[in-house]
């Protein structure tokens, strides 16, 4: 599935979900980092793009690749593969970037691949285990299961807000968590 297809599908599903107003069902955009499959709240996803030329930022941590021009806006790009030391950080025609829009701040996130959009009912979501994969359990809201697939659900907002990423301004209230 191409990035553009996923993007369209994501948007279409997003609207349908709002329209049907099923409160207990959530939709996740799934992506892979190394061997692990992750899910991120579809409502936080603005679009999916191929990897662009990035302008390096002086004195930035290595996982911040730099900034891109997204239709006139300067958007920072973070490579989660480097951040979590998963997969090989290669940049080619197949490299995918998920553009997130959180509190009107836009951030690009490089991942290995984007798979599809998954609907999960609340009973399909289990709390995160104490021991985690590569990602700190602080940033995991739970594990989603569908058939034989297991999805690590990422609290992307908290992750981007974390001290070492600092891509979102630190929040003063804890209500932003799930």
């Amino acid at each position, binding site marked *: 599935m191409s990035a553009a297809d996923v993007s369209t599908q994501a948007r279409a599903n997003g609207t349908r979900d709002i329209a049907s107003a099923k409160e207990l069902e959530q939709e996740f955009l799934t992506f892979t980092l190394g061997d692990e499959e992750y899910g991120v709240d579809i409502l936080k996803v603005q679009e999916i793009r191929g990897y662009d030329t990035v302008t390096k*930022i*002086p004195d930035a941590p290595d996982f911040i690749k730099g900034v891109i*021009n997204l239709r*006139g806006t*300067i958007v*920072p790009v973070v490579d989660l593969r480097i951040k979590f030391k998963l997969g090989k950080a290669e940049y080619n025609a197949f490299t995918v970037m998920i553009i997130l829009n959180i509190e009107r*701040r836009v*951030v690009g996130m490089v991942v290995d691949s984007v798979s599809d959009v998954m609907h999960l009912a609340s009973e399909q979501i289990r709390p995160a285990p104490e021991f985690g994969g590569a990602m700190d359990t602080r940033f995991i809201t739970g594990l989603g299961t569908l058939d034989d697939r297991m999805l690590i659900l990422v609290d992307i907002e908290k992750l981007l807000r974390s001290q070492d990423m600092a891509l979102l301004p630190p929040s003063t209230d804890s209500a932003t968590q799930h």
Partner: protein
Amino acid sequence: MEIDFSRFHQTFFEESFEGLDVMESALLKLDIGNADSEIINTIFRAAHSMKGGAATFGFLDVAGFTHLLETLLDQMRSGQRAVTQHDVDLLLRSVDVVRGLLTAARDSTAADTQSVEQLRAELEQTLLSAPSDKPAAVSAAPVVAAKASNHWHIRFAPHRNLFRGGNDPLRIIRELGTLGEMQVTLDDQALPSFEVADAEDCYLAWNIELHAECSRASVLEVFAWVEDESDLTIELVQEKAAAAVVEAKPEVTKPQLAVIQGGRENAAPADAHKASSGESGSIRVGTEKIDSLINLVGELVITQAMLAQQAAALDPVLHEKLMTGLSQLDRNTRSMQEAVMSIRMLPMDFVFSRFPRLIRDLAGKLGKQARLVMVGESTELDKSVIEKIADPLNHLVRNSLDHGIEMPDVRLAAGKDSSGTITLKAAHRGGSIMIEVSDDGRGLDRAKLIAKAKERGITVSDNAPDGEIWQLIFAPGFSTAEKVTDISGRGVGMDVVKKNIQALGGQVDITSVDGRGMTIMIRLPLTLAILDGMSVSVGEEIFIVPLNAVAESLQPRAEDVKSIAGQGRVVRVRGEILPLVPLREVFHLGSGITEPQKGILVLIESEGRKVALMVDELVGQQQVVIKSLESNYRRISGISGATILGDGRVALILDVGELVRANACDQAA
């Protein structure tokens, strides 16, 4: 009709605050004893408008207070009252009170009733002492209508010119009919023969018997507009003696009346809401709309540059039409950009206009004498810059008056005019604006500054050039006054002033002559949205250097570059020794040349200090649209923003001030 007036409140507040500013600056311009009537008129008009609006929109305390002002001003305007210092002071203080009342009304908070009442009493007292005996009430309550059925005998004989005032006797009579029952008799005795009659004149008169439960006042009110254009008698006839009714003819109109009526359109309020064009000279637009327009034009400029770059690879002969079109697009985009940017431009007067009042009040408090000279108030500057420069300027002006200008006796002893002069100057200089605050006061004391710096633990060389010593006043926690006064020693220091100016991409320079005064020069970019830049490359990366900070660029000779142990390298440029700063090292870039003689040195200047920035190559000069890095990322030291190049890539813009500060510090004087 139910109309929610609150929709007009914001406009009312905006224009009222503007009106107060107008009043204030006009009051300050008033020459006591020789007041310009046009200025008084302007002040009166502002108060008058505000009163009308306040009364209409239900801000009665504002209406009541401005009424007093209006009355006082009206007396001045009509020459009944001389313009005295006392009255001007009173009016100035009233302006503040009205401002407070309006702010309270706007924010739905409580007004400072004590000062309002106090000033109200003063105003009333002043009005009492006036030679005139004008009523001071806001509304002269109309006479309450009597409730008894009365019989009125009315004779209404309009003058011949009645129609020329747009009035129609039939309309008036019809309206009279709404008060009660009436019999109307037409008197056409004065009507001349048809051939001599002027169709535009009124020759008719009416006798009317009105039986109505109304007072004389309400009858008079019907005729109010034509009272002076007609012979009118209104007599109360006893109800019993109501026999004298003549034959009641129906209302007849003569041909001449019909003609006139034909000239008037009928009111047809049936189909409402046909969009009408409320044409007027200006419109109020939210700044966010303008900003989004500016952003869009910025995008357009980038797209245009991108197209031009693509087209450069094409054969101009084969693609002649495309090339012509592109160059036209280029011109149009530039003019559009200029036009859009000009929307945001405001005259400096916007900020300057507050200073006459400030200096007047402050000088009074300090027991000093000072006058203000303003030059170039009409110089235009971006609204956002204007708003942000107001506070720093305010501080500098206060500082000049407090620390610069001496007491009158000291000035006289020094052979100067007892009254000091503070000059505010604004002028365009290339792509920047220069704002100067100067005074003819005592100037800065070099020895004192050095002593103070040492006391504060700031390292400073006794031989440092003046420019460097003067900059000490901007050091954090540095104050030159022996005692902290409540005028300028309050809270923020000069260091904050400088920081604010730098945040705007500006620079501050000081010149001072002992005993003669000092001048603070501020250089600011005209706008925060675009910048003239020089693009330079280091390895793969392109950076933009703001052109106004570039002194020159050159290729150094190997023998001009020296290494100083532990302090990096320096370069000699025409006898001047400058720190050599490789951009590659500043930003820890992985690529780029390392030998100065193979690269280019760009000499950048800030606050009178220079450093030589080493880059690989100069790429070109271009106007760039400044984009914020902080809206999605964060501030980066040494970088003031970003822009998008013709090929769509992002380039970072250097923060020259910061680079010079960080690197010139290492420089041993």
